[in-house]
């Protein structure tokens, strides 16, 4: 008879990162793994530190606006809205109503493009290549629209402290309406593809669960906390820009499924419904937008001088596609550059929720759980498995292969 072998197994330490080949910025994960299960998760961010806040103290406020756009190329409108609002509060600058509406429209367009981008990435991590290409193809239409309105595909350069730099003229309305109608039709298509697919549902249901208690304890923001069933949204709770005039309600997965799991699937539901919400917000804003000036400071030198004279501090909050961004500014009198600029981005708040989501999950689920937060920094490229001195290298390809194999297994099981 065989004796039962009691193995004194030590968990294997797995390092992922910091270089990722696809979309994301560098971040390092350290996993402790027992078999297929993740036991412990640790993060090592900071590879992307560019010293932006320090740079702001050496440039004037308008130059820093363009640095704020380059905090993140995907949320460039979000960061510049928060930055502008912080400066405007500190220097007591009033923004014309039309500019507020235009900011709202640009911000919501950015949300649609960001959520579509995320939907593509999530599909890629799961092994649905067709869905990835579909999501990115329909996203191109919105990039065209943003380019048509602002002049740029990414880093739009359309905001200015005290207002906006470009107007939406009446002859541009037809092009916007065409795109919005297009997206309303596409939304139903994407809805079917993502939410009615059995394999996708089996893969994402009850994967990477974040309970409402943990979500609150870890101060998560944006779609991540809303997917855990907590209806919080800066646009609803602390209205700014034109959001106070519009009909906005924080979206939780209850709206669709009637129940909250706080898993990856719920995060897909929330983001897809937010695309629809953004389309409606743009339509509402275009109807309600009053006629008026774009800025109270048409001359740049006057604006710079006003900021130079001003003294005080201000905060700016904005609900970016990934959650709340927060900017703090302190201005000193007779100084062109801000004394202090502090930025809190949404992924900073969400990063620690990875630890709760990943613990107890399988290795094959790591890519989709990491992607489900929609990180601005992430990295799952190279995995070094260290086991009793032996080191073997896993690449992102290997991880993705594991992820795809699992999808395939589920698909086979259904037949």
């Amino acid at each position, binding site marked *: 008879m065989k004796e039962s072998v009691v193995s004194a197994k030590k968990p294997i330490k797995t390092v992922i990162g*910091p*270089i*990722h*080949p*696809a*979309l*994301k*910025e*560098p971040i390092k994960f350290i996993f402790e793994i027992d078999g297929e299960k993740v036991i412990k998760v640790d993060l090592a961010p*900071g*590879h*992307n*530190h*560019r*010293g*932006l806040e*320090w*740079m702001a103290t*050496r440039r004037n406020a308008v130059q820093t606006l*363009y*640095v704020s756009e*380059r*905090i*993140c*190329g*995907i949320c*460039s409108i979000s960061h510049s809205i928060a930055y502008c609002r912080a400066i405007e509060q500190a220097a007591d600058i009033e923004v014309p109503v039309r500019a507020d509406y235009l900011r709202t429209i640009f911000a919501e367009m950015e949300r649609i493009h960001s959520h579509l*981008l995320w939907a593509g990435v999530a599909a890629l991590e799961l092994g649905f290549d067709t869905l990835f*290409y579909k999501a*990115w*193809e329909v*996203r*191109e239409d919105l*990039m065209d629209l943003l380019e048509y309105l602002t002049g740029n*595909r*990414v*880093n739009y350069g359309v905001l200015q402290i005290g207002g906006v730099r470009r107007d939406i003229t009446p002859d541009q309305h037809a092009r916007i309406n065409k795109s919005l109608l297009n997206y309303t039709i596409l939304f139903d298509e994407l809805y079917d593809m993502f939410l009615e697919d059995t394999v996708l549902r089996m893969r994402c249901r009850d994967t990477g669960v974040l309970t409402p208690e943990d979500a609150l304890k870890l101060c998560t923001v944006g779609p991540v906390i809303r997917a855990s069933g907590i209806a919080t949204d800066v646009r609803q709770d602390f209205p700014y820009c034109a959001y106070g005039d519009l009909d906005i309600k924080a979206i939780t997965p209850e709206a669709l499924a009637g129940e909250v799991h706080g898993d990856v699937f719920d995060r897909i539901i929330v983001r897809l419904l937010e695309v629809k919400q953004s389309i409606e917000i743009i339509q509402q804003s275009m109807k309600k937008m009053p006629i008026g000036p774009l800025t109270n400071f048409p001359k740049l030198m006057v604006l710079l001088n006003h900021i130079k004279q001003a003294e005080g501090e201000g905060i700016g909050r904005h609900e970016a596609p990934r959650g709340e961004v927060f900017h703090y500014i302190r201005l000193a009198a007779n100084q062109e550059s801000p004394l202090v600029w502090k930025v809190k981005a949404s992924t900073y708040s969400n990063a620690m929720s990875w630890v709760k989501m990943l613990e107890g999950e399988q290795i094959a689920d790591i890519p989709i759980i990491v992607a489900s937060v929609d990180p*601005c920094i992430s990295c799952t*490229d*190279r995995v070094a498995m260290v086991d009793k001195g032996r080191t073997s290298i896993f*690449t*992102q*390809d290997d991880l*993705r292969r594991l992820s795809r194999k699992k999808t395939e297994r589920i698909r086979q099981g259904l037949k």
Partner: protein
Amino acid sequence: MSISKALNKSLWVYHVNTGSCNGCDIEIVAAITPRYDPERFGIKLVGTPRHADVILVTGPVTNKMKDKLLRVYHQTPDPKLVMVIGACGVSGGPFYESYTLSGPVDDVVPVDVYVPGCPPRPESIIFGVVTALKKLEEIQKK
């Protein structure tokens, strides 16, 4: 074997982010999606530097990423080309005076093609890869 004989069929590219803002990175991915579809020319994004012919570098190279970029560079088999995508990799761009930069990309690894822009359009990224091909042809003629 001459350089271009090894590369004259298709170019596989590997993308490494050395601290960029994501702007160039999403434009690189946008460049491989159906509208531009460079895969018909054999240009393909791969997941590991060991499969790559061309390394696309985005970002101004932060101190922490310098070693990693060098490691990726050495892991890529010869012959290889390095392309810099975006203004911050070319010259430091908006981050030029930051205290965390190890200089623009060409201070760290030798660069063959520069694609300026903040961020460059997908068309110019594809044009950059085509320029790299032309450069290889010229080397072969000599």
